[in-house]
């Protein structure tokens, strides 16, 4: 019987091909970060810094794509099948919606990272035209007759929802829920355009030249002033506003499917590192790390902040009362007023 010298050769070649393909797969990992409107620039820089760190630690190249939009719409996309590895959204309620409607994220997501999975905080401030011609300094100034306010739709935008709750919370402190409802009704009478996301509102205000005041995330406000010209806009910090806590979470079902859990978890944990916190501060998000916040204290004026939990009993209650179909927002806002 003839020997078959080709058999070990084929086995060797097969093994080499196997090893090569395995090595290539091992050398690269892809992540998709589905985020809300104003975080584009933040995550461009975070991705770059994390990629370098991950490469150094594991030898893997991490290729991170970003998707941005109104927080509620982004959550809906993930529910409908957008293969996000991580979500970095504007509201805890939006992540809860993913949990509830698609089970793609474990229900205990908020306990898996520090500070209820909130690496940075922010607040809602006012952006006004240069010199603040209408002298808008506090929330009451926004409801004066003739004042035009620009803010996104709280039904679709995290920024819009924070702004709405900030307005309600401030008014409530003065006169209870009845006064708050009256105040917010007047406020939204002065809102002629509801964009679906915070970035859209910024464009409406800054590039379409609509309105006297923009209710914006603090980071979005600072970026607008810095990039569009300090000679065009001023930022007004009201005495009191809301503590905005945009959370992050790994999309468990997707990372298990993509086999990207390790990188996805490391990516979110990176946000809590000194480097990640410093990048957040650079992009005008308030770090949760007290030391990093202290180093950057000058760029974050003191505002008396109240939380959703304390004022509204948590996001579930706030969402049900204010933003559910037929809720308070639907009651006070009449399109076409």
């Amino acid at each position: 019987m003839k020997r078959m010298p080709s058999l070990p050769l084929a086995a060797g070649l097969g093994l080499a091909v196997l090893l090569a393909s395995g090595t290539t797969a091992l050398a690269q990992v892809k992540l998709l970060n589905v985020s809300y409107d104003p975080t584009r620039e933040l995550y461009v820089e975070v991705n770059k810094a994390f990629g370098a760190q991950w490469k150094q630690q594991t030898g893997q190249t991490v290729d991170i794509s970003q998707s941005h939009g109104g927080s509620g719409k982004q959550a809906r996309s993930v529910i409908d099948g957008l293969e996000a590895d991580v979500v970095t959204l504007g509201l805890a309620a939006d992540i809860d919606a993913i949990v509830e409607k698609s089970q793609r994220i474990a229900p205990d997501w908020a306990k898996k990272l520090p500070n209820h999975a909130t690496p940075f905080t922010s607040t809602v401030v006012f952006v006004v035209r240069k010199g603040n011609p209408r002298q808008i300094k506090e929330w009451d100034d926004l409801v004066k007759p003739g004042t035009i306010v620009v803010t996104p739709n709280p039904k679709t935008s995290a920024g819009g929802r924070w702004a709405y709750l900030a307005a309600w919370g401030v008014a409530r402190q003065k006169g209870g829920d009845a006064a708050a409802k009256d105040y917010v009704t007047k406020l939204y009478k002065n809102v002629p355009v509801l964009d679906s996301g915070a970035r859209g509102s910024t464009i409406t205000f800054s590039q379409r030249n609509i309105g006297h005041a923009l209710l914006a995330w603090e980071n979005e406000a600072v970026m607008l002033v810095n990039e569009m010209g300090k000679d065009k806009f001023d930022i007004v910090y009201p005495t009191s506003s809301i503590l905005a806590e945009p959370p992050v979470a790994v999309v468990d079902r997707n990372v298990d499917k993509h086999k990207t859990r390790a990188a996805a978890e490391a990516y979110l944990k990176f946000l809590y590192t000194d480097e990640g916190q410093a990048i957040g501060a650079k992009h005008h998000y308030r770090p949760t790390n007290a030391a990093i916040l202290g180093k950057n204290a000058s760029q974050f004026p003191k505002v008396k902040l109240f939380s959703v939990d304390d004022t509204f009993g948590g996001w579930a209650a706030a969402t049900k009362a204010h933003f559910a179909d037929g809720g308070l927002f639907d009651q006070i806002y009449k399109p076409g007023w």
Partner: protein
Amino acid sequence: MTSNPENMTTKGSSVPDSRPPSFRASSVGTPSPRVRPFRIGGAALLAIVAATGSAAAQAPATPGTANVAAPAVTDTGATPPAAPAPEATPNLTELQNRIDAAEQASRIAVRRVELLEEQLAATAQAAKQQKDVPTFTTAGERGFNFRSGDGLYLLRVKGQLQIDTRWFLNDGALSDKADTFLIRRMRPSIDGTVFGLVDYKFTPDFAGASLAVFDAYADIHPFQWLRLRAGKFKSPLGLERLQNDPDLVFMERALTQDLTPQRDVGAALGGEVGNGILTYSLGVYNGAPDSANPDVDTNHAKDFVGRVLLQPFKAEALSGLGSLGLHFAASTGNRFGTPTNTLLPAYKSGGQNTFFNYISGTTDPAGTPFAHLRQTRINPGLYYYFGGFGVLGEYVWDKQEVQKGNVTTNLVNWAAHGTASFVIGGKNGYDGATPNQVLDFTKGTWGALEIGVRWNYLKVDGATFGSTTDTTALVFADNTKSPAKVQAFGGAINYVPSRTFRLCVNFEQSRFTGGSSVKTTTTDATGAKVTTATVTNRHTENALLGRVQVNF
């Protein structure tokens, strides 16, 4: 042309755009050609408005969201004046204010048109995506899945095939020599979701002599804590019964299964509270006898069955302690058996041989006992899994009122079992062994090996067999044919290459008390031969079972 900044996916690396980064996504800055006519037209209109002294704020609203007269505004800080008196001649500042206000109104109108266009485009795109990608098809451990683009509809095709062999060692004294190969289960299954709200499942079994339906139900789940299931399914009795067949440590369930129904038809409310720390179920069912799988009811009476399952280690602070389940279930309901449809069970051993039957009066119906009125079952149990280690144990107490002739009595039977298992190369759990790495020759991974041992026991009420001292006591079962007790010890070795495939070898020895007899013939004082039967134990059963299982 619109400034929709949403849902743009960009790589986190370079972004070659010279505009400020925050606005790269936008086409805003220079009005698009479609916007420009609005602005030009608006400016022309405003000139007329200003010249005629009309306030922009007084413009009538047009339909939709882009048609509302905006509040009058000015960037000079002055509040726009009310409609001027016809005879007054506006000064330059007032005119400027009016122009500013009119410009704002015009810009708002244009922006609203843009937003409407964006909404229409997004709606059209979503509709197109919905149309273009109607389904996602996947295949894996959980079957073949077909899901609609919006995720609201799901169809899963699944299957379970168990090919068994049973060999009874040292069975020379047994009359029912049952060494055999057989198809134990052959169950295709269809399940899924409609409207994103209602789950459904349909599972027939083609194994055996006739087609049987095992699951056929709809499950409405508006909330995690509240779901309504209606149809044919497992009533929540039997901790091991509630485990899926392919996930069991032993090929056949323990003796406790003899005292719980396989399936029942009814409706139940249930759900999970506190992230699954508490699971509950409360239902009303037709009322299935022990071990039965009925499709229809024979009377008006119904069973009420409830269950709570406490899983304290699902609390975040305790999540590192493994998986602990504390189960308690109970049922109660009436039976209306007859001599021809007794609604009384027969009990099977681990080797699936019937070892217990109630007597049947072949000529006299009054000699046949049957279930009459109340049956109550109580079923506590627990499981604990940590890493590869797992234990599961339960107890079933079963009281049934039985009638024979015109006499009734309550008979209480009970059973218990404890199973311990260890998974090498995998994770153990209530949902079965899961290999850390599935069998893959190319990677040199081999799946998992599951080893299990168990003890199980069943005791029939002594009153079932009459009385040795009271000859008038009724006899419901013949103790020379049906044992009063059985105790079994078993061991299992299962090779689990993946959750979809396993090879099983089980051995179980069942020892009986009663259930057989020795006949002795003697001669009495008159010289006549008298034959008497002395109760002895049924021959010990040594069952060696093997299985090839495919499950997806």
